[in-house]
Every structure is written in structure tokens, then in C-alpha cells.
């Protein structure tokens, strides 16, 4: 069997190279545009899907029933210092909700929607300090906040907190720092974690140290239920994009740009935030912006800046508006809180 395994292994390797051998890909050139069909938007999609009956409802229900039998075991294991992570195909949202409503009714618990694209670790920590610990006041950085939480929980052994995380591998939580903080949080004896993961590469997030902090017990909970909530944020290319940009898409687009382009966008964002209290602020005029970019050595000519701005416009990162005096004004069509979060994240990465 060892030889067999080896064969399998080399097969896998060959398959990899086969898949990546030629840069040329043989696929047809048809595009969705030619399909002569209107693109569905989010709303109609939902309506359509709601109308179609769920296949194999009975079997899925039976599967869920099986998983629900484990609830009491989970509670015992959580109290013994383990944390629970669920994996398997299908949305585990309903299962966790059921767990929450049936078992955790009377306990303090916190639900984190990891698939939500604007969630940050800071917001998780904030809800712990503000709502669970009744602490008013802000902290300089997440690690400080974490330290405060750890201290409080160590002092007061009567505090108990259940944290349910849907999609621990969500876009915004997969970063190394977020995971580090969550891991430290989960290692506290009075905080109990139940999380679900979906991505196939989710375990890559954790190294030895984090794993030992998390102290996971894995449970396979294949539910086959559709990922309704989770994919509603996954801006699919088949769906018409709705207007406002989410933080995650913002960071993703920006990450693929050059350093200077990022600097330009940053400059504009900072300027907009400085003027956020001024209701009559029309945006930054192109000339002023050009001047500032020159001073920061981000562009060297009018043309390059224009080219850059065109690219931003294509990604719907900025909007231009002609003022009463005929001057072009630049605006970022994103709400201020998202922009603040974005700048903070940028600061961390730089």
C-alpha cells in the first residue's frame, strides 16, 4: 500500500504541473454579454431562489438532527477548556443559531458574523468591552484592548462568555493579526469559542502556537444547507454590483495597485476625512490634488495623475463632480466609517 500511496502522490504532483504547464488556456471565447440575457440583480436572485424548493429537505433535516444531539457534549467540552470548530459542506449558520437559542439562552454570548465584509477584530473586541464588561472608553490598539479584557477576565472568575463565530475564515478575519488576537482570546478559560470554517484552506491560518492557544476540537458537521447569508456578500460576478463599496473589496482592489497609486488614494482619503464635518465640502479639486501629489513625490506630471484617476474611476473608487465654477472635484463614494477603518488597516500593514 505504501507504493500505492507513492503513486498517488506523484500523480497529484503531475496533475499540478499539468494544470499549470502552459500559460495558454483552451477555453471558448464566449462571454456572458453575448448570452442575450439580462443580468439578474441581487433582489430578483433572492426571489427566484426562494421560490425553488430545497432539494432533499428531509435528509438535510435528519443530518441536522444528528448534529443537534451533540449539543450537550459540546457544552461539557467547552467547559473543560476545549474550543469547538465545525467543518464540512453546507452552511453551519442555522446549526449554530439553534445551539445559541436552545442552549445558550441564559448565558452571556456574542455572535460574530465572520462573513460580513466590514467586520474587524476591533469591533469584536469593542463589543466585548462595551457590552460584556461595561467599560466605556477607547483603547489605543487592539492588543491593549485585549490585555484589558484578559485582565478583567482573570480578576473576575464569575464572568463567562460564549463567542460564536460564523465563518472564522471570513475575508476580514483571516489575517494573521486578527487570528492571533482571537487565539489569545480563546485561550482564556472563561471564554468559550464555537466557530465554523468553510474555506478549504482554512487550517493554513493557524501555526503551532495559535493552534495550541485555540485548543480546537474538530467536529464534522456536513449540513448541505445553502450558504444564503454567507454568499449574499460574496459579490459574485454574475450579479449586478450594487452601489456601495465594501471595505473588503476596497482593500482588495488597492492591494493590487502600485505603491504610488496607493499613496495617491490615501492622500485623497485623508483629505476627505479631514473635511468630513464640513457639509458643504465639494471634494478636492484636481489642481490642488495634483499639487499635493507632487509634493509627496507621488506623480511627476499631470498626465500620470489623470491616468491613475481614470483607473480609480473604472474601479468605482472615486467619483468626479463638476462644481459651479467648472472645476473638477474628486470624491470617494464610500461612507466615512469604512474609510476610517481602511486607513487604520493600511497603517497596520505599512
Amino acid at each position, binding site marked *: 500500500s505504501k507504493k500505492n500511496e507513492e503513486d498517488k502522490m506523484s*500523480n497529484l504532483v503531475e496533475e499540478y504541473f499539468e494544470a499549470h504547464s502552459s500559460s495558454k488556456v483552451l*477555453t471558448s471565447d*464566449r*462571454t456572458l454579454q453575448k448570452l442575450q*440575457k439580462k443580468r439578474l440583480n441581487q433582489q430578483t436572485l433572492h426571489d427566484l431562489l426562494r421560490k425553488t424548493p430545497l432539494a432533499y429537505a428531509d435528509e438535510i433535516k435528519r443530518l441536522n438532527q444528528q448534529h443537534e444531539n451533540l449539543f450537550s457534549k459540546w457544552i*461539557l*467540552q467547552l467547559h473543560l477548556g476545549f474550543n469547538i470548530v465545525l467543518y*464540512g459542506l453546507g452552511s453551519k449558520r442555522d446549526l449554530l443559531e439553534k445551539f445559541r437559542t436552545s442552549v445558550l439562552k441564559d448565558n452571556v454570548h456574542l455572535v460574530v458574523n465572520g462573513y460580513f465584509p466590514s467586520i474587524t477584530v476591533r469591533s469584536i473586541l469593542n463589543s466585548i468591552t462595551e457590552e460584556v464588561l461595561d467599560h466605556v472608553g477607547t483603547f489605543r490598539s487592539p492588543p491593549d484592548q485585549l490585555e484589558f479584557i484578559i485582565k478583567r477576565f482573570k480578576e473576575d472568575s464569575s464572568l463567562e462568555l460564549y463567542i460564536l463565530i460564523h465563518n472564522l475564515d471570513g475575508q476580514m478575519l483571516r489575517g494573521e493579526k486578527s487570528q492571533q488576537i482571537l487565539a489569545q482570546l480563546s485561550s482564556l478559560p472563561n471564554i468559550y469559542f464555537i466557530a465554523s470554517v468553510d474555506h478549504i484552506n482554512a487550517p493554513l491560518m493557524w501555526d503551532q502556537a495559535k493552534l495550541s492557544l485555540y485548543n480546537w476540537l474538530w467536529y464534522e458537521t456536513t449540513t448541505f444547507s445553502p450558504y444564503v447569508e454567507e454568499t449574499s456578500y*460574496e459579490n459574485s460576478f454574475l450579479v449586478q454590483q450594487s452601489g456601495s463599496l465594501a471595505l473588503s473589496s476596497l482593500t482588495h482592489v488597492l492591494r493590487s495597485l502600485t505603491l504610488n497609486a496607493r499613496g495617491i488614494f490615501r492622500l485623497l482619503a485623508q483629505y476627505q476625512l479631514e473635511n468630513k464635518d464640513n457639509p458643504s465640502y465639494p471634494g478636492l479639486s484636481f489642481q490642488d490634488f495634483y499639487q499635493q501629489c507632487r509634493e509627496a513625490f507621488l506623480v511627476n506630471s499631470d498626465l500620470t495623475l489623470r491616468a491613475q484617476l481614470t483607473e480609480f474611476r473604472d474601479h468605482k473608487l472615486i467619483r468626479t463632480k463638476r462644481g459651479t465654477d467648472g472645476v473638477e472635484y474628486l470624491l470617494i463614494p464610500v461612507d466615512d466609517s469604512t474609510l476610517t477603518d481602511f486607513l487604520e488597516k493600511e497603517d497596520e500593514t505599512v
Partner: protein
Amino acid sequence: QQIQEELNKQLFDNLVSFLRQSHPDFQEKTTEWTRGMKSREIPTAALVLGVNVTDHNLTFRSLTDVLQNNITPYIAMLEAKNCAGIKNLMQKLMEQLMNCQIDEEPLEDEDYVQVSQKRIRCSMSSLVTWYESVTKKTDTGTPSKRASPSSKYGQYPPVVVVLKDMESFSTKVLQDFIVISSEHIHELPLVMVFGIATSPMMIHNVLPHSVSSLLCIELFQSLSCKEHLSTVIDKLLLTPQYPFKLGEKALQVLINIFLYHDFSVQNFIKGYQLCIVEHFYSQPLSVLCCQLADAKTRANALSHDQCENVRRLPSFRRYVESQVAEKQIALLTEDSCLKETVQELLQDLHIYHENYISALRCLHVFTSFLPKHPLGKQIRELHCTCLEDRVWETEEYESSLQLARMLNKSDLVTMLQQCVEIFVSSSGKQSDEIVEKLKEFLTQFQKLEAEAFQEPDVSISSPKELQKKTDLYHLQKTLLELKESKRSKKLTKFELLRFEVVDYIDSLVRKYLLPADHKTLHEVVYFNTASVLREHLNAAPRIALHTALNNPYCYLKNQALRSDGGSISNKAPDICIVYRLHLECGRLINLVDWLEAFTTVMMAAEGPNADAASSDQDDDVIHARFIRAVSELELLGFIKPSKQKTDHVARLTWGGC
């Protein structure tokens, strides 16, 4: 509840204390050395700790304890995750050093405490002000701080900085810190301790010559994690002290995870804990798994349901079948009779464990000496083979006995002595009725020893030859020659003795090393469900996804989903079909084609009754379902949108999975 209490009892404290003990020499050395150090360079102790990062916390904690108790230093422990920049590092360092000092002298120096607390708060209050004062703080803050308490101690206690995870520090921060502190080494006697997970070469990779020349490094090696494991197993599994035991398969899984995955003793212990939890949760008779006296009282208080549970145990059934008819009836019907028998059986089991462990150690003494180690070098391997099946039926055991029959005298004597020691210690502990036998064996052993000692005087000629040849191979050859040529009477006496000993050991083994499965009521104390462990500790989410997508029948038991071999039924859930179609593509997938293929499959599934009128409506629905399935695949990480070509997605996996 009761079960939970039992769980947490004993176990963890014992482990912690034990882990602490395992490092004493090592710590002793380090402390000695920190005390003695006084030099122009920064004295540095590099501790090579091995890759099991998770176990190091405990080591460091006990190290600080030891250092603190010997009143040498103030200790700050720095972790890489807190020290992204030199600024953070200094801040953390100050904070910890000040806290240390406050701990040390709680009420003696009120002013000082206030001052330092004020400083901490000030440093916390705003990053900017702190940043401006950082130079002041490092330059004047630390030396003065040192001056005040050191005057009280009379000497200059060094300040120890422990860098827990040397590898994860950014090199720049580390270099800067070393250079800065080397500037102040005269005012502030600093000692650094590096925790290194890989090898000492690391230091030279990270630090350039100019920086590493500022350090005066001494290496310390910690125990390897394998030794750690064997002591843990020794203390945890091979004592009669704990009633809970691990079965062979479960133990094997735990050891495999340790050896092939992480080398982490902590994870091993975690797995052990999980075993205990599982055992007490799932096995209704685990209430009987406790110390003998408790177990007996609990056995007496068994309810009727529990008695039924006992009767249902397979090992108990075997036991009943071996009894006479009247006894059988009594056991199966009367609870009181059953309770008595259970008590006896529990007692039996207890005695069996005690004997088992000493016999196991005894056998280990013999086999670990043998060349090539047919039964394994470590006692844990021997333990596993013994648990697995009757050890004397294995080939390895045969060959080791063969080898044991050729042992020379001095080895044999030392082994015998060791065995005697084992039995003395164990019989001292047991003090029960089983000692009798052991005592008898003991005297026999001693007699043997005495005779063995006299032997060389009596038979000078031939054993002398034997003594010269220490090598077993030669010994064997000479023995064979001797046998063939002439049978010396003295030699046979020795040989006889040796055979007697080996046979005796053999009988001992046969008597006591019965695998636990053959004992009645072994289910009460043994946990042997390896699949549970594997599932929860060493999960494979990708395989679960793969089977669910490839073969939904595994989970959804619907006859419509049943399919043979590679094909998939067209009635499968949408996502499975989309997944199946995507498997057939290369690196890039055209969405239009994909959608069309999906539509075709769907149409085929709906069959001929789909009339033309509603086809437009159907199209939309199928389109929507396709979108949902594709975005689910995207969420699962199988595909991602690609910019290489319009309306294409890139596949992130390859081959059949």
C-alpha cells in the same frame, strides 16, 4: 457532575509539577551562570529548545520562578508578537521590569512604587508623548531605577531579558535592541536569554558580526521532546496510581500524532484529556473507574440499569459463559450476586495492573539490552505490543528470547539486579496479598545472584573465556563450539541457570502481560476508540468536503443519489453538479460554457415533462441556482474570479480534488 470531578482530579497538577521537575538541571545551570556573569559584553544564554513551541511556555515560566527565587534578577519576558518595533519592545520591557520590582518589594518603598506607577501610566496615556520621552526613559530611567533597589540588595542584581521566540523577532528590532543595551551595559547589567527553536546557527543568521560580537553567548541544550514524552508516558500511563488507562489503538494514535506531526507534549496531554472526557462521557460504566476502595463502594450502589449495562459488556458475557450453569443464572438475574462478582472482578483488574506494570518494566529491562531491539527500545513500544495481543506469540518476542539465552553473565546479573529493584519498589508499594509471590521470586533472584557471583570462582577455565568476549556474536560462536566439543559440567550449570532465568521471565511474561482485552470488565477503565481521537484532533476538512461534493449519498441517504463509481447522478444537489462539472476543466473555466453544461444537466433531470411555455421562467431559475452554486464554490475556495480573460474563473485546486 460527579464524573467531571473525577476527571479533573489529580491529573493536571501532577503533570505540571512533573514538567517542572524535568527541567531542573537545566535551569540550575542557567541560574548559576547568570549569577556568575560579569563582563563587558552582554552575557547571553541561548537555550536550544526544539521545535515544540507550545511546550516552551511552561519552561520559561519555571525558569523565571527559579531566577526570581534566587533573588538574582529582575526579569522581563518579551514575545515577538508584542514587539513589532523597537518602540514597543522598550515599552514592554519597561512595563515588565517595573512590575517585577513592584512585585518584589510590595510595601517597603512607597515612594518608589508611586513613581513607577505614574511612569507606567504616562507611558500608556499617549503614544506620542511616550515616543518623545523614550530617549529620556531609556537613558535615565533605567539606570536610576536600577540604582534605587540595588543599593538595598547591596550587590548589582542583573536584569534578565528573556526573548521567548527568537526566530519570530524581526531582525532589525533585535539588532537595535542589542546595540542599544550594549551601550548601557555599564550602568545596567543586562543578561539576555534567547529561546531558540531551531538551531544555534540561527543566531548567526539573524545577527551580523558587528552585533553578535557584542554578545557573549553560551549554549544550553534542553531535553529532547522524545525523552519528555517517554517520561510523561512513564509517569502517566505506567503507574497503577491512575485508574484510567489507554487502550492500544488510542495510544498509538496519540503517539503517532506526536511523532509525525508536532512533537508537542502539550498536545499529547490534550489528546489524553480528550480521551478521559470521551471515556467518562460515553461509557456508562465509567463511574467504576476510580480508586479500588471507591470503586467497590460504587459497585455496591449500582442501580438496576447499571447492572444491566454490566451484563451487556462483551467481556462480562465471556466471563459468564465460562461459569457453571447455576452461577450463570444468578449472575444474569440477581443484582446482588452480580455486585459481588463485580467487586471481585474489579479487585482482579486492579491487581492485574499492578503486576502488569512491574512485569512490563522487567521485560523492558531485558529486551532493551538486546542488539537490534526486536521488541523496541522504548518502554512505550513494548507497552503497545503488549496491549495489542499476546506478546509471547509474536515473532519479535521469540527472537528476543533467543537472544536473551545467549546473554553473558555480567549483563545477566545487572539485569537481574534491576529487575529485583523494580520488584522491590513495586512490592513495597503494593503491600497487599499479591506480595507473597513477589517475595518468593525475590529470594529466588537473590539466590541466583549469589550463585552467579560464586560461579567464576568455581569454574575458572571456561567462563573466563566467556568473560573476555563481550560481543554477543562471538559469545554465541564460542558457546556453540563449546557445546559441540565437550560439555563442561560447570558450564551447563551456568547455562542451566541462565535458561532457568529466561524461562522464568518468560513465565512471568505469560502470566502477567496478558493483553487487557482478555480481562473481564476491562471496558470500565480502558478507552480504545481511536476514531474519535483521530476525528477530533486530527481532522481533515478537505476530505470531508470532497466526499460530500463527490458522493452526497454518504450524507444524504436518498436512493436517488446512489451512484456507482465515477459518475454522479443528475439529481444531486446543485453544488455537487457544479463541482463535478468544474472538475472536468483545466485551469480556467468559461462561465458561459459552465452554465450551459449545468443547464443541460438540469433539463435532463427534469425530464420530458418540462414544456416549452415555462422554459423561459425555468431558465431564470436555473441561472439563479447556478449563480448560487458558483458563489458557494467561491466561498469554499475552489475557484476565484480571474482577470485573465473575460467571464472566466480560475480553478484553485488540481487533479481530482
